[in-house]
């Protein structure tokens, strides 16, 4: 699913990365716990989270997540945005809550898969 479709489904706003909306994400991953993201996320996933600090970007970078969508209209601070620009990570924000965001994406065919690293 492309980020453009995701943007439409979630009625999301692009914080940074307008030029990357043709990018394809392979699965969705929703968590406020970065340790779980580190443990289970696959590369090229979309991360849905309510956390907005810079560790979200660091985590995304480490596991090769290229797009993050903040839920319930949350927006990260300047520092987090700057780090995301530096690490080439697309940031979106949607007014929808986590449950609805996941539900809509899943219904529209975005995959979910648990993968362990070893």
């Amino acid at each position, binding site marked *: 699913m492309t980020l453009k479709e995701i943007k439409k489904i979630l009625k999301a706003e692009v914080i940074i990365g307008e*030029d990357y909306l043709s990018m394809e994400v392979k699965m969705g991953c929703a968590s406020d716990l970065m340790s779980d993201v580190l443990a289970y996320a696959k590369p090229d996933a979309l991360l849905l989270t309510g956390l907005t600090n810079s560790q979200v970007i660091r985590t995304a970078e480490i596991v090769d997540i290229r797009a993050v969508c903040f839920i319930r209209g949350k927006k990260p601070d300047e520092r987090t945005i700057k780090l995301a620009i530096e690490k080439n990570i697309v940031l979106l924000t949607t007014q929808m809550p986590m449950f609805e965001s996941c539900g809509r994406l899943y219904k529209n065919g975005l995959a979910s898969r648990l993968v362990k690293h070893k």
Partner: protein
Amino acid sequence: MKKTVKLDKDTKYTKIQELTYELKVSNVMTNKVVTVTPGKTIYELRELFRTNRISGTPVVDKGKLIGIISIEDFIKCLAQGEMHTLISEKMTKRVKTLYADEPIIHAVRKFDQYGIGRFPVIEREGGKLVGIITKGDIIKGLLKKLEIEYHQEEIHRYRASHIFEDIIADSTSLILKYNIVGKDFNKAGECASGLKKTFYRLGIQPDIVRRAAIATYEAEMNIVVFTEGGRLTVSVEPQQIKIEADDSGPGIPDIKQAMQPGFSTASEWVRELGFGAGMGLPNIKNCTDKINIESKVGKGTHLETIIYLNNNA
């Protein structure tokens, strides 16, 4: 995302954006400017344009830029039978210019804004005409710069990934050391990020880089959260990667308990940052082939993990 620094479609785009700020007009402009004097006729332009393969030129009088004349002006004169009028009468007098020291993003914007084909380039001090710039110059300049950087990166990567073949010794080990600042959440993760980049350059397999990066990140997080700081020592050998994290923090009273998924002693502020759910050490264990922790309460902790590079081993 910039994992390999390979110029895939996405990376190239932002790289170009970056370069448009980095490169100056003077880096990409044509230095040798063909100029005309205002006293010549439009007819004389024909030869000038043809021999120099250009479509416009600045008009200079006694070293001073006073106008610009293009092939469009020429065609208009041709249509109206005014081939023998003077250039000074037909030229555009209010010339839009660029300064030599401006970043080329300014040039890009001006091309968009005015829709004209070329800008004379002048020195900020004194206004001396030093060059001319077209969209073609910008594209050529960007491509050249990209090519140079791409080449350099390839050379770096080649050298780095062959380091073990080039070294003659009974055993080789590349030691990378990182200092971790305690309680500094904004810097937390920088070691893991740097390590990841380095591993890619060393030509290590992507899934191993990922595992090492996750283990390092969690180890780094632990040091940032619980201690005043520590050290990360990574030894890369042909068969394995050893990651050691040392700190002089509070120590772990019960290591077995700490290894249980979900067991945590982290405070609320750590949880708010998305960590501290007792998954750190279990995550490290899952990502590595061997893990050993030694800890003394009040003295510090030594974490040692190994990832084998040869998966068949």
